[in-house]
């Protein structure tokens, strides 16, 4: 992989921040965008902008075609069976809420059990928490083991005939842990439970095959995989989507409306009310094209090498504690840590003065913070455009932050 050439595809990576070269290590929050994505969006507005699925003129045909081509790109990217199974949403959060408010509303009843893990992002916890509250259902939490992996024994013991839904994050946005979603799905299906996989962190970094996983729902966010913000997708098995009530209502999701009756549109448009974010979808298609050209296997193996290097170097920082799996084979390129005597916000500010962007805070995973006995962590997260030199800069800046705060016991 020619990283220097790849980096030239991302205009923002040449920015100078506070007299230093930008070192962008907050990729789990959002990724930077290559020129092909920026250009695809500009091309739409310069050459063929028209509302989709409405006009009979050439521009509308072109924009509609581009929008639906994007849907097929998402289908191919996660290996879904049909474009009927791909619903465009704002992001993974909206995809997960869509499930909770449609399938969940109809299928979760008092006394039913919903199993989620302690590693869930708030977006795959709060919708189920609220659903359970509305319905009088029970939420059960699968803990993590001390090595940062999911406690599968605990999961197995929680599964029962009462389990109606299992929600599981594919790659933790804090620990980086890659959870065994295929095994989890098989176990849950034996009990007749539906399985929702939050793929916001996994889809950008590894090959996804929803048919192999066999999950019933899979959620992705475009902006975490080179795409623009405001576009994401929900994969759901066709049989599920067929049985579900619509989420939002309005234009596009209908076939026929009279004052007395409404006939819903076919899949997947039944779940896409209003003018969709076709600009976002078109940008996402360009992003997927870029990722496919690079190859997800190449991306995964390069990031693993980078993560392995980072884990080894970061361990040399005095007083550092790294959360989650300690070996790169077990996780994606996400490393959450704290340094004794230096709060993560202070680390964030000190790193910023070196042009290094990382995340500090609770990472929208407060239950996991509480479980780890902290209120905040610092987090460095990588993408394929990051380099070992950038990790060296990170480690040097971490050592500097330790020096500023002195070597407190």
């Amino acid at each position, binding site marked *: 992989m020619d990283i220097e050439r790849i980096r030239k595809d991302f205009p923002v990576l040449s920015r100078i921040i506070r007299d230093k070269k930008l070192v962008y290590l907050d990729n789990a929050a959002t990724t930077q965008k290559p020129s092909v994505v920026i250009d695809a969006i500009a091309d739409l507005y310069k050459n063929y902008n028209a509302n989709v699925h409405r006009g009979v003129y050439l521009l509308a045909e072109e924009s509609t075609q581009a929008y639906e081509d994007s849907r097929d790109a998402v289908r191919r990217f996660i290996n879904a069976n049909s474009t009927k199974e791909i619903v465009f949403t704002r992001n993974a959060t909206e995809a997960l809420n869509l499930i909770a408010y449609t399938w969940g509303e109809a299928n979760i009843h008092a006394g039913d059990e919903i199993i989620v893990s302690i590693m869930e992002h708030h977006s795959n916890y709060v919708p189920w928490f609220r659903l359970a509250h509305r319905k009088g259902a029970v939420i059960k939490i699968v803990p993590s083991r001390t090595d940062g992996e999911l406690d599968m024994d605990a999961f197995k013991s929680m599964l029962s005939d009462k389990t109606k839904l299992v929600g599981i994050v594919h790659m933790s946005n804090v620990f980086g842990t890659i959870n065994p979603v295929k095994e989890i799905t098989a176990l849950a299906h034996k009990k007749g439970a539906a399985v929702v996989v939050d793929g916001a962190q996994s889809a950008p970094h590894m090959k996804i095959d929803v048919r192999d996983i066999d999950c019933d729902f899979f959620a992705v966010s475009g902006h975490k995989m080179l795409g623009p913000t405001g576009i994401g997708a929900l994969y759901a098995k066709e049989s599920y989507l067929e049985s579900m009530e619509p989420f939002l209502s309005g234009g596009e999701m209908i076939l026929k409306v009279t004052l007395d009756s409404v006939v819903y549109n076919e899949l997947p448009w039944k779940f896409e009310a209003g003018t969709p974010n076709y600009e976002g979808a078109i940008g996402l298609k360009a992003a997927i094209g870029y990722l496919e050209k690079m190859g997800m296997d190449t991306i995964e193996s390069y990031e693993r090498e980078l993560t392995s290097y980072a884990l080894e170097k970061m361990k040399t920082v005095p007083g550092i504690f790294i959360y989650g799996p300690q070996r790169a084979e077990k996780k994606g390129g996400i490393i959450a840590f704290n340094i004794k*005597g230096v*709060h*993560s*916000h*202070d680390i964030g*500010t*000190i790193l910023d*003065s070196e042009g290094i962007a990382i995340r*500090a*805070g*609770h990472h929208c995973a407060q239950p996991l*913070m509480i479980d780890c006995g902290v*209120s*905040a962590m610092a987090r460095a997260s990588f993408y394929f455009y990051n380099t070992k030199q950038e990790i060296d800069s990170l480690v040097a800046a971490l050592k500097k932050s330790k020096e*500023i*705060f*002195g070597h*407190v016991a």
Partner: protein
Amino acid sequence: MSLEELFKEIIIEHYQHPKNQGHLEHPDAKSDGSNPLCGDEIAMELIFDGNVVSNVMFTGNGCSISQSAASLITEAIKGKTIEETRTIMNEYKNMLAGRDYNADILGDLEALSDVKRYPARVKCASLSVAVLDQALQQKK
């Protein structure tokens, strides 16, 4: 802007060895608050003697800015009248907002003046005064 201006020695000293940290028996007023985005937490307890803040203690956890601010502000208001306390709080708010302020009134609190250059951190420095505001409202 250099880091040394933000993380002055006095700030790190108050962060590592905070003054007035702990609880009071039978406080006349108490209040707490947090910054949901970053998780900083501060709780304050006050005892009044007539119109004077005769004692004040805080507990909390969070970054050096939020915790040193709590330490410095409790030092600044202890033994002051409520009127004087409000003046100190207002001058402190002026400083963080980048407005003119009276340095003599602020004393050591002026160490936090460079926080205003870091918009993401102003909330950290402001948490203590927000909590103090709520606590003072409990004074009849």
